[in-house]
């Protein structure tokens, strides 16, 4: 890798206890995140994909420090930031920020835009009132909003504008990593592109890394170089954009890819048949790819960049045979 390693998540687990019984004991755990390891490089966009409930948002929240890790470590530039006290000491959130899914909820409805964007500045940087105002106007300018937005309230903006305000707040302290938790899934399609392009522009300008959490494979293809697919709290496939989109190994990945909507009407029938075939394959081979508890298998190395949670027998088959295994 030519770029420096920025963030390394090592075997992260976030479990929620389920209490029950007479003494309110812990009877079980909900394994929201169960052994996830990812590495994010500087200036890179890392896509984390999965269906809802797969633990991708929890992973993102654990990385920014909103959720506590049950086990495992998160290293930021070589330092373990799993503990709250270390995060505070390092002013960690100055470097790692978050863009939230729903801009309607992530902007305080009772605060003016100037206060919302200035919040991280006030906490992490000591600026005079005037400097702060200039900075906020600059930030608004970066996301394509004028200074007249300063004294308005969030409800006076459209969804896309609101999300851009969220982006402006996230980049206010010049972070090195931004965790974007489904930043465009609450927006309509035309506005999605607008917000994504602003995010890309900012990335080029400030050399920011993104952890892009999404369930929308089309958007991820547009944004990300490295992709990890998550299912039931575990990673099922990790690789570059090419690995995932052109050589999917895991049946879950194949299923996800088949779900991308196609706009080519002429081949509607072919797509439909393809989808049915993928679904049939998924149902037939489900037991091979998941263990008896329904959890994904450990990741196997396929190439330098490509890892997938496929059964060992299949890896051997891959190594002996040539190219992709046909099902």
């Amino acid at each position, binding site marked *: 890798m030519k770029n420096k390693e920025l963030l390394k998540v090592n075997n992260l687990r976030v479990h929620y206890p389920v209490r029950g019984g007479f003494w309110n004991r812990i009877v079980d755990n909900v394994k929201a995140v169960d052994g996830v390891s990812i590495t994010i490089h500087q200036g890179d966009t890392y896509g984390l994909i999965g269906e809802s409930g797969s633990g991708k948002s929890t992973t993102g929240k654990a990385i920014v420090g909103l959720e506590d890790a049950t086990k495992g470590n998160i290293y930021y530039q070589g330092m373990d930031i799993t503990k709250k006290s270390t995060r505070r000491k390092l002013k960690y959130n100055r470097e790692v920020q978050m863009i939230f899914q729903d801009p309607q909820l992530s902007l305080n*409805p009772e605060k003016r835009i100037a206060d919302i964007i200035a919040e991280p500045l006030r906490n992490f940087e000591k600026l005079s009132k005037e400097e702060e*105002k200039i900075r906020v106007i600059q930030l608004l300018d970066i996301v394509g909003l004028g*200074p*007249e937005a*300063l004294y308005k309230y969030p409800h006076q903006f459209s969804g896309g504008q609101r999300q851009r305000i969220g982006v402006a707040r996230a980049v206010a302290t010049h972070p090195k990593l931004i965790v974007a938790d489904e930043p465009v899934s609450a927006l309509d399609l035309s506005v999605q592109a607008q917000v994504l392009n602003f995010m890309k522009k900012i990335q080029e300008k400030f050399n920011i890394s993104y952890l892009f959490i999404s369930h929308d494979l089309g958007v991820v293809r547009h944004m990300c170089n490295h992709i990890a697919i998550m299912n039931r709290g575990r990673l099922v496939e990790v690789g570059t954009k090419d690995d995932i989109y052109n050589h999917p190994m895991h049946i879950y990945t194949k299923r996800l890819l088949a779900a991308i909507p196609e706009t080519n009407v002429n081949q509607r029938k072919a797509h439909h048949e393809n989808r049915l075939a993928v679904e049939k394959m998924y149902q037939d081979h489900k037991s091979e790819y998941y263990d008896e508890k329904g959890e994904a298998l450990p990741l196997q190395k396929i190439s330098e960049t490509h890892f997938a949670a496929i059964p060992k027998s299949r890896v051997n088959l891959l190594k002996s045979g040539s190219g992709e295994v046909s099902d």
Partner: protein
Amino acid sequence: MQKSLETGAQLSKEDLIKLSDEAKNNATPSTFKIIWKEFKADKMALFSLIFLVAFIVFVIVGSMFINVSQMMQTNIMNYFAKPFTSNFLLGADAGGRPILEQLIVGSRNSILIALGLTVISSAFGICYGLISGYFGRVTDLSMQRVYDFMMIIPSFMIIIEIVNIIPNYNAITLTLLLSLFYWMGTQRLIRSQVLAESQKDYVSASKTSGSSNLKIIFKQIMPNISSLIIVDTTISFAENIGVETGLSYLGFGLPVGTPSLGTLIANANDADNITIYWWTWLPATIEIILLCLAISYIGAALRRATNSTQRRSTD
């Protein structure tokens, strides 16, 4: 990185001032403006507000000109003096004490105690609810058990007991004593709202922006429940007038010789007073009804002002 940002939008001081002014002109009206508009649209609420403020000012200023110890002296010559005479505009009670003066001083006492009680108990209840609801888990659990304990105490009986035990007390100690027992309703209301608010994303956003918990509680969450706070405080003010009045009515309120609305209403305990000497108790009763009505009208207008779907004013 820094450089590119600065070249991105270079602003001079004049530009900044100009832009700020421009932005201010585009700004949304403040909460107070909205509330004022709502009052203007609802004539009854506006009238209530003027009445309430004027009345409070009148009794506070008026009582400054009254010598209380002289007024409260028994004068047998004025035994149940009739109202609407030159010396006794509202008559006198069995001790020959003038009702009008008693009413003015008594209203001041009752209203100030109610105000103090509202401020102290609401402030405490709001803080308690905010902290309990925001931190949740063990904090919430233990704080709510304290609340449960306070709820099952028969507060009125305890207050009467304490008043009997304490050798001497005045309006301030009575206010503090009452505040111990009247914060629970507010705290429950605030907590339930904060539980919902603290799960919202803007709280997470504040956390990642590096704000401390106290800052998040009082600067982020509190403005979002301000409507609830305003309405609840107004209504508990009306309620608290009743608390002191009720206590004084039973004879356990302010020390003997201090007039209050409660002691005036207590005149109605006598059958003769009810039928013949109506002026001893009727003015205070009407006053309480008017005060509580006015406050509830104000509360209703405030509630509408803070909820944009219910507003009567048009902008």
